[in-house]
């Protein structure tokens, strides 16, 4: 009985997994094709096989330096973001006033504002204080992405019993200590989720950094778009580049999974 459903789940999982992987098969297999090979048949295996795209793409992307930039920007922004949004959510969730409800709604509504409509005044403001660089960018990310993160955190916080705060407070912990020592660790599965969602968003973002960053601080996607001219799209390089650039994210994700799992086993006790 248990067995049968496990087998069923396993098969379903494999099928869905293949379905989901197919486009990645296309990305990876085409990244090993010559430009001609790509368009000769997109669906087939690479023939002839070439790994030259990777070398070329690596060079064209200035991979090491743009990887460094991407890493710095992503990591710092996400750290800041997690700190701010989890604190914000904590403050909002534990405070049952009308004001906090309204504030949350404001945060949520902020998510609805299309980026395009604020980008001009935003860059104007940052430009006027000479903050159009990766540090400015980090702040912008915190600003833009904290709404969703707060929203996500807020929901999980409601399942962390208030008794946790109470116990810690009685033991003499101040708000900050309760937050860092008790709440934040208990939020870790959600933190990992928030981190993943924001990392991929920031890692792949093109528009905002393209407005903000000077050349020297270009990230991978910014370099990547050099492959996409109005007429000439260098798919062979782009696909190799894409493969290169998602490897760090996948590695992170796999690593983060461990954390999520761990967070669960730490999980709730009444």
């Amino acid at each position, binding site marked *: 009985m248990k067995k049968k459903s496990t087998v069923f789940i*396993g098969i379903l*999982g494999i099928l869905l*997994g293949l379905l989901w992987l197919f486009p990645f098969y*296309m*990305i990876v297999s085409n990244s090993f094709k010559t430009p001609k090979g790509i368009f000769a048949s*997109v669906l087939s295996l690479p023939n002839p096989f070439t790994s030259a795209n990777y070398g070329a793409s690596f060079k064209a992307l200035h991979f090491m330096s743009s990887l460094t930039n991407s890493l710095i920007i992503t990591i710092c922004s996400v750290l800041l973001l997690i700190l701010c949004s989890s604190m914000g959510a904590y403050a909002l969730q534990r405070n049952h006033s009308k004001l906090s409800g309204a504030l949350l709604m404001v945060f*949520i509504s902020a998510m609805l504002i299309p980026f395009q409509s604020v980008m001009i005044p935003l860059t104007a403001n940052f430009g006027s204080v000479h903050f159009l660089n990766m540090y400015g960018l980090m702040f912008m990310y915190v600003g833009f992405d904290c709404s969703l993160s707060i929203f996500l955190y807020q929901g*999980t916080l409601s399942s962390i019993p208030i008794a946790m705060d109470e116990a810690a407070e009685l033991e003499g912990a101040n708000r900050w200590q309760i937050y860092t020592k008790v709440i934040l660790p208990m939020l870790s599965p959600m933190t990992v989720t928030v981190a993943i969602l924001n990392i991929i968003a920031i890692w792949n973002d093109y528009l905002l950094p393209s407005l903000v960053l000077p050349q020297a601080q270009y990230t991978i996607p910014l370099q990547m778009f050099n492959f996409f001219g109005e007429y000439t799209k260098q798919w062979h390089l782009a696909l190799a580049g894409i493969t290169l650039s998602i490897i760090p994210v996948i590695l992170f994700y796999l690593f983060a999974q461990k954390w999520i799992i761990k967070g669960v086993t730490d999980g*709730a006790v009444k």
Partner: protein
Amino acid sequence: MVGFKNYTALLTDKTFINAFWFTLAFVIVTVILLNVIGLGLALLVTQKFKGSNLLRTIFFMPNMIGGLILGFIWQFIFTQGFTALGTALHWSWLNGWLTNAKTGFWGLVIVTVWQMSGYIMIIYIAYLQNIPQEVIEAAEIDGASAWQRFTKITFPMIAPAFTVCMFLTLSNGFKIYDQNLSLTNGGPYQSTQMLAMNIVNTAYNSGNFAAAEAKAMIFFIIVAAISLIQVFYNRKREVDL
């Protein structure tokens, strides 16, 4: 008064109205599909079986690639993959995808669902893992089947996740742009043009900023109203533990 004219003009702007209905249909379909599939995937990969972690990664991976590449890949799948499959299986409906509004619509839906359901999935996962195991156990003892446990215990207890995901899928559905651009670019003849693209085109391609602003305003009001009402309504049902 000049401003007002921009709004009344919208009522006769056929492309805008078409984009509106198209978007609305898209939103309805994707909100349902994304939440059902996202939650389904979340439930699937939170089962204890070998490879569930790998599957999680796989389902989430589409989010790691940006719009352009996505459009490229999927165009090939639709034009070549589908055609090849259609010929092999003699399923004529697999031919000619993206060449008309209907297949364009479903193409967009497929790509969106493929890409975003992993995103929705991990949000649901995060909340699913927060459900105290003991409550599920109690329900098992009470004789609840897997489905009953899901509807009566799991789902009510992840109500916040539902609120968040509804919101995200709603607002993203309305705001969707990249996929639209890269997959169909609104074509053919603007039949798959969605609101965001319509507004951007009005603003930047046609340079008609006043009209674009009016559209954006209407758009924002609609999205905000629907999304926030949804949030407000759903939050009322959530319980603090």
